[in-house]
């Protein structure tokens, strides 16, 4: 169910569009000649093996890295995202895989970092109320928002990072493995949230290794392999198809494990 | 006026030389004990820090000192201390270094400028006597004290004057940060590379920097070491003089000056006006002339005046040299 060429998506102008993006780190080429379009009101899932370059791509879109070559257009205008502030100004909100929280600040301060209410006289009460609301919306289980982030559990931190990105009114939202550390309930809430956000007309990029989640919410699935585009799929694509595109081989660890467990079960049933 | 139980403070500037703790302070205390047994002497050393000295000054006044003997770290900065003290009725005796900007109640000192002049002049004379020609590009090196030390500035001025008594050029001049001998050594080593045997002598502002210069010559394999001056008559330097590595140093029998200061202090306590020999910077003053010590007069100035004992100086390695100079 791979989309051979996707002229249908070019009918409306993408919010954000990448062409020929490459990124080298010393002797390693993390990205080579990658193209990507993000439309408003659409969830693009970005999948790929470990080290495929997904986070690098997101960091380039978020202004955290500069691409080695390639062009980015936003609303049809070529832009250079020289730093994260530039990306934020364009309305690109990002949840990074490494979360990028300040461990020494408390939860409220982290959520509002860079966007504090009343710069000259911080309004702690309003910020705290707003923070609780956001966290409750995400079913977060954080005992106190006045503890430094250093003392939070992995999932609690991830929730904080997601709450951060909901604060501003973005045009595009980039989520780099947003549910990796979340509990089942929190994951469900985040998926709900992603759908709500899409319905409000935002462009969403979601990276995930969980194929169920990806197929549940994505409108389009873009596969990266070893830093290159490796096909675009619709959510209806089978697991097998996707995994093959991701690992680059029909016979991969997933399929082998699938066979093995199936055999074991069969063996177990006929003792 | 009854002075029993009064408090007197004795404030010294730094640790650059051991004399303050080894000679001045004991000398002062001993004389005070003689003159006023029940008087209390407060002693503090400012470790070459102006602000520390100000704190110490304020502190002794808080403790009720009526007379302060002050050897200022920075002569200019001391002016305000004197000013404040006098406003509170506390008398100040300038000690060792003058306080030019404000009239202290008395000034007792060796003259630092005179010291600089004396060592330089003594060196010049020695060179002349040896028949070292001042022609061509030969000359002397000048190693001054710390660039941030006012006393070093006075000595430096004196050295300049002293060198004018001869016609030897100054090849190069150096302000030694913190009086550190190792800095002096490094600098001297560089000059030795630069000038080689054109260096006929070194005027160093104290024994530590002089010792550094000597070490540099030794390290460069220069033999014999050209005459190097010093100042303070530390044991180490006297030993070098005995061994013939250092040419001269200055003996300041500080106990005498300290005793004089104690005398003045007691008179001031009693409300008397101490009589002055001269006036310097508008201040009634009593100045002592220090003695230049070389091999010739070492026995007379140091041993005979009981400033150091032969036993202290003539440790095994210097015993032979001592014998030559007639010191047992």
């Amino acid at each position: 169910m791979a989309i051979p060429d996707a002229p249908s998506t070019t009918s409306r102008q993408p919010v954000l569009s990448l062409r020929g993006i490459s990124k080298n780190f010393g002797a390693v080429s993390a990205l080579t000649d990658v193209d990507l379009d993000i439309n408003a009101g659409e969830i693009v899932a970005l999948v790929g093996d470990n080290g495929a370059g997904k986070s690098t791509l997101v960091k380039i879109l978020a202004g955290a890295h500069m691409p080695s070559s390639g062009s980015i257009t936003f609303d049809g205008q070529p832009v250079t995202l020289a730093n994260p502030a530039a990306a934020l100004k364009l309305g690109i909100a990002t949840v990074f895989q490494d979360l990028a929280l300040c461990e020494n600040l408390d939860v409220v301060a982290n959520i509002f970092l860079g966007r504090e209410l009343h710069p000259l006289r911080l309004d702690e009460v309003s910020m705290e109320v707003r923070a609780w609301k956001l966290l409750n919306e995400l079913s977060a289980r954080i005992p106190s928002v006045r503890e430094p982030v250093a003392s939070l559990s992995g999932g609690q931190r991830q929730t904080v990072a997601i709450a951060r990105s909901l604060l501003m009114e973005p045009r595009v939202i980039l989520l780099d493995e947003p549910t990796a550390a979340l509990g089942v309930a929190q994951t469900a809430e985040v998926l709900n949230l992603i759908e709500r956000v899409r319905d409000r007309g935002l462009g969403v990029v979601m990276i995930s290794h969980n194929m169920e989640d990806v197929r549940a919410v994505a409108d389009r699935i873009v596969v990266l392999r070893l830093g290159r585009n490796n096909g675009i799929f619709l959510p209806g694509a089978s697991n097998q198809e996707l995994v093959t595109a991701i690992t680059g081989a029909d016979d991969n660890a997933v399929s082998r494990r699938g066979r093995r467990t199936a055999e074991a079960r069969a063996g177990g049933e006929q003792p | 006026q009854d002075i029993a139980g009064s408090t007197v403070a004795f404030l010294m500037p730094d640790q650059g030389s051991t004399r303050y703790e080894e000679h001045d302070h004991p000398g002062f205390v001993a004389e005070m004990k003689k003159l006023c047994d029940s008087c209390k002497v407060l002693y503090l050393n400012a470790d070459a820090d102006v602000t520390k000295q100000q704190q110490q000054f304020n502190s002794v006044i808080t403790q009720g000192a009526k007379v302060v003997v002050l050897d200022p770290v920075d002569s200019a900065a001391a002016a305000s201390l004197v000013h404040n003290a006098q406003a509170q009725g506390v008398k100040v005796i300038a000690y060792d270094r003058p306080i030019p900007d404000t009239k202290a109640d008395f000034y007792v000192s060796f003259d630092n400028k005179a010291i600089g002049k004396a060592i330089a002049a003594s060196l010049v004379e020695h060179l002349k006597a040896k028949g070292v020609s001042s022609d061509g590009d030969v000359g002397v090196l000048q190693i001054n004290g710390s660039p941030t030390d006012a006393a070093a500035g006075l000595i430096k001025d004196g050295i300049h004057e002293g060198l004018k008594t001869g016609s030897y050029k100054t090849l190069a001049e150096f302000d030694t940060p913190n009086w550190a001998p190792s800095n002096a050594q490094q600098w001297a080593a560089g000059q030795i590379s630069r000038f080689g045997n054109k260096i006929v002598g070194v005027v160093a502002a104290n024994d530590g920097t002089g010792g550094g210069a000597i070490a540099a010559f030794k390290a460069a394999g220069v033999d014999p070491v050209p005459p190097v001056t010093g100042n303070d008559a530390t044991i180490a330097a006297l030993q070098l003089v005995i061994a013939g590595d250092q040419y001269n140093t200055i003996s300041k029998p500080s106990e005498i000056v300290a005793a004089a200061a104690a005398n003045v202090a007691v008179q001031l306590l009693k409300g008397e006006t101490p009589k002055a020999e001269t006036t310097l910077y508008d201040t009634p003053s009593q100045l002592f002339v220090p003695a230049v010590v070389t091999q010739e007069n070492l026995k007379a100035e140091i041993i005979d005046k009981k400033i150091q004992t032969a036993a202290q100086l003539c440790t095994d390695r210097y015993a032979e040299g001592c014998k030559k100079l007639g010191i047992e």
Partner: protein
Amino acid sequence: MTVSDRNPGALLDRGDERLKDRSGAKGAIQGFLDRVRSGDLGSLPVVVGLVLICTIFQTLNPVFLSPNNLVNLLFDCSTVGIISLGIVCVLMVGEIDLSVGSVSGLASALLGVLWVQWGWPVALAIVAAMAVGFVTGCVYALLLNRLGMPSFVSTLSGLLAFLGLQLYILGPTGSINLPYDSPMVDFGQLLVMPYWVSHTLAVVPGVLGLFLGYRKAQRRRAAGLSSRSLGGLLLQAVAMTLVLELVTYYLNQSRGVPWMFALFVGLVVAMNYALKRTQWGRSMTAVGGNREAARRAGINVRLIYTSAFALCATLAATGGLLSAARLATASQQAGTGDVNLNAIAAAVIGGTSLFGGRGSAYSALLGIIVIQSIASGLTLLDLSSSLRYMITGCVLAIAVIVDSLARRSRVSHGRA
């Protein structure tokens, strides 16, 4: 979106059942004990260390706590304290400024030359000296931002270069005396508050604390958040006012509270406000905690560095001007010696981390008081320099050990 398993009717921030109840007087005491056990005591341990030091010195020489000596102490704290306040700024962003001593020396030299020698109006000379400090800080920040030069190295270069400059501009004359009767020198040496002013000011923190605390509690209650009880606020306000009034009364037995110290405390309070209650301060803390995270949050990290260095160097210059006033001299020695180390040590002893992201303006105040108390206490004992050095070292260690012990238990509770 309803969260089914929160305690019904609980306050917004008290919903988690794992949180122990900490409301009411018993809760407050329990909370305090908890904090003692987990070492989360803020600056209390340093205060305990300070009390320890004071007790020892007082028993050794009763002059130590005499009002007169304390007034001297306050005068002496102010100059290096202000420099230390600047150091807190650069430490907050995880950098260092080794040149504060030299910059302060340069500022005092400039004051002497411009005001006394060249005859500029004193205000202009002050502004010029502070401007030089400001520019210096900007240059350090530029070197860091554009060339990535570690501040340790750039400020070390500055340390040397400015010491040279100080000597150079004082060169021909050496130290320069400032006129005794000028307001500047008076400020540094004599000016104290009239009694009524000091007593009035001593009431302010308590009243303000009560007022603001009450308003905040009201707003929090309205927003459904937990809030402090009025009783607790009142208790705190009364205690604070009592202590301050007592101290003021005691100091007024002698000369009184120096205006210079008031300036220092004013700057500390202002800095504390700026660091804790403004976006700028939040950004400073964030940059010090995780530079990359701050950058990704859209904070202009370069600007933050620039502001930190500029503020530090400007405060250093201010400190230099005040110490010139205190000495009534633009001295060649100004800013040399221990100024650097004392300024940095004060901040660190007060609890500001050398590694960035953790600290407070009050650490400068506390730290410098500790350092000056030790210095002052030792001048009251008749000791040779060698002994004084040794004892200073040991007492310093003791003063900090209390704090370290408290923090150690904090680490073992997993929140280093």
